[in-house]
């Protein structure tokens, strides 16, 4: 069975948590004891109705404030697919937590309140969706019941959003009118929206084509760990353990080890302790090479037919995620997969304006949640691809060397 990871973006008022509650509830994935706990908590509220949002707001502070602070992961399955939901916060203050949830998602559901249409939050969530290059987008126009299921309202929002999508270069965008509260068009299609001819939301989630999302052409294998038993019978055993991030590797393939540039040939591939002729992304394997060369954690084994760029200077779109402002000239650790290297943010060329989607040249400050274009110089060369072309080898994080906190997400260009 296939696995789809998706993120839901929208503020509480857009009905995001209600939508998730509805998906879990209607697919019978809520357990009785959790439902009983919900009923008990909902009684503290005035209207007495079960508040499905309480299902995902797992922290005390979230329940007290009625907002989502951090990503909650929820799981459900239908006979067709398994799903992992990243329920992400919508508030600007917690953007970095949405980025966390978005980074591993195959699909984003962007909720729009039919009464308000495309608003600033919608644009910000869409920017992050585009920035993190989530392959599939579903714009769920919610609360259709509150606009009398009006087709005109729906069409106008679709037109507005299409413009945002075009500006941001979002590729696969679908639209669906829903009412999360009533369950309209969530699991099954509704009689209230006869003019809507498309599938239900769950139908979309079950059938979105995922096969093309993993790149099988550009082979990238970052070495995580070297297995060397050093016992008598395995004296010469030296296996490079890691996960194939993209591509297919076969026994006998000619490979290059980056950034050093050594060449070798694949002698053997082990998967789960057995020798195999080929392995592919995202399998975790052990690779053996014909030549005895110096390879360690952080090195990238690639096939000769398609190579990444190697450089000690990269340009990237950076989402700043620390409360302390970014100071150009400061040194940070840059980590791309298993490779860590010291680096310095040389230049901030522009900041992305969330309202207008325009670029503001040479910004004075870079604060928490700002998205900026930067040039980063690294102490030694790194092997990378453009993030928009190969998500698994173009994303890097910046780590503050003194606090050890992850302060930035880089989408390398």
């Amino acid at each position, binding site marked *: 069975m296939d696995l789809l990871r998706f993120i839901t973006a929208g503020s509480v008022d857009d009905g995001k948590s209600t939508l998730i509650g509805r998906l879990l509830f209607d697919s019978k994935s809520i*357990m009785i004891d959790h439902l009983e*706990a919900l009923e008990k908590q909902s009684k503290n509220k005035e209207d007495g109705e079960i508040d499905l949002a309480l299902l995902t707001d797992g922290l005390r502070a979230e*329940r007290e404030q009625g907002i989502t602070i*951090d990503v*909650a992961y929820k799981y459900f399955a239908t006979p067709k697919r398994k799903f992992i939901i990243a329920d992400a916060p919508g508030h600007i203050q917690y953007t970095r*937590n949405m980025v966390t949830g978005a980074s591993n998602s195959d699909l984003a559901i962007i909720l729009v309140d039919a009464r308000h249409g495309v608003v600033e939050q919608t644009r910000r969530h869409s920017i992050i969706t585009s920035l993190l290059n989530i392959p599939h987008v579903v714009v769920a126009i919610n609360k259709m019941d509150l606009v009398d299921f009006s087709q005109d309202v729906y069409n106008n929002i679709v037109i507005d959003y299409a413009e945002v999508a075009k500006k941001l270069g979002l590729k696969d965008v679908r639209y669906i009118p829903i009412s999360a509260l009533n369950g309209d068009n969530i699991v099954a299609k509704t009689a209230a929206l006869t003019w809507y001819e498309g599938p239900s939301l769950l139908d979309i989630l079950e059938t979105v084509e995922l*096969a093309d999302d993993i790149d099988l052409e550009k082979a990238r294998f970052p070495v995580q760990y070297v297995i060397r038993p050093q016992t008598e019978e*395995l004296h010469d055993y030296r296996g490079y353990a890691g996960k194939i991030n993209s591509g297919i590797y076969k026994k006998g393939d000619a490979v290059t080890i980056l950034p050093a540039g050594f060449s070798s040939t694949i002698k053997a591939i082990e998967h789960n302790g057995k020798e195999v002729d080929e392995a592919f992304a995202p399998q975790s394997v052990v690779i053996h090479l014909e030549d005895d060369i110096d390879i360690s954690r952080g090195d990238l084994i690639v096939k000769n037919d398609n190579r990444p760029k190697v450089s000690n200077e990269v340009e990237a779109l950076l989402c700043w995620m620390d409360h302390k402002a970014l100071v150009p000239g400061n040194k940070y650790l840059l980590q791309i997969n298993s490779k860590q290297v010291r680096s310095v943010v040389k230049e901030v060329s522009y900041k992305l304006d969330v309202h207008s989607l325009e670029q503001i040249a040479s910004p004075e400050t870079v604060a928490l949640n700002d998205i900026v274009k930067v040039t980063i110089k690294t102490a030694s060369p790194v092997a990378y691809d453009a993030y928009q072309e190969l998500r698994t080898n173009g994303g890097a*994080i910046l780590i503050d060397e003194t606090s050890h*906190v992850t302060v930035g997400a880089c989408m390398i260009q």
Partner: protein
Amino acid sequence: MSAYRLDYLDQLESEAIHIMREVAGQFEKPALLFSGGKDSITLVHLALKAFRPGKFPFPLVHIDTGHNFPEALQFRDELAATIGEKLVVRKVEDTIKSRQLTEPKGKFASRNALQTYTLLDTIEEFGFDACIGGARRDEEKARAKERIFSVRDEFGQWNPKLQRPELWNTYNGRISKGENVRVFPISNWTELDIWNYIKRENIALPSIYFAHERTVLEHEGQLIALSEFIQLDDTDSIVTKKVRYRTVGDMTCTAAVESSASGIDDIIREITATKTSERGETRIDDKVSEAAMEDRKKNGYF
């Protein structure tokens, strides 16, 4: 499905192996917290896949409350011996004595909360910088929020409002002295995923996971094994039933479920049909308050 598309269990397996190898690559003194329950047994199975033919780059560590099921302890010792890996056992009993801790009293008094003291002492004793654990996000709503690399401060505390961003499969394991990281490789697995994997991989489990006759105390709908650790009253209803365990914790805080499931297939059928969550059905320790797990985690609990 394309020939180059992985089944969901293979995807989850690969993700978990990747996380374990990140621990091996990033930390100097990691440990694998092992309880003898199905989730940590699955972790050991994944570690075999991640590191063989090499040795594990970490010992198995068990924090023994003294209230464990004997079947789980026996299984623990046999497994460690079979795979030839180091097992460290530290006892809550000893911490209670040396630190003069007060044991909770009452009918089902549990040492669950006291485990944290022994765990933190053990981390300090060995200087562990990372502890791999078998917690899953589907278990409980506070766990649903936790990162895969979860940083704990020098008091072992989790700060849920200030978690590090965690992007892609890029894990930042850098910490200051005194801090440590709890790592959860099977975060994204559900209870059913675990059982399907155990079936597929033919993983051995302690016998108490399968239906057996047991004399139990029936208390507010929950079945608690008779043992020297619980207090009996004259009015208690003692019955003998065919039961199995859905989770394996302490004898004092884990309830059995009535079941005739003697094999994995039967168990998977029962879990698929069940309407109650794993912890809801079997854990007495979660019932204290709505935020019981969040509070325990903030204090350094696993």
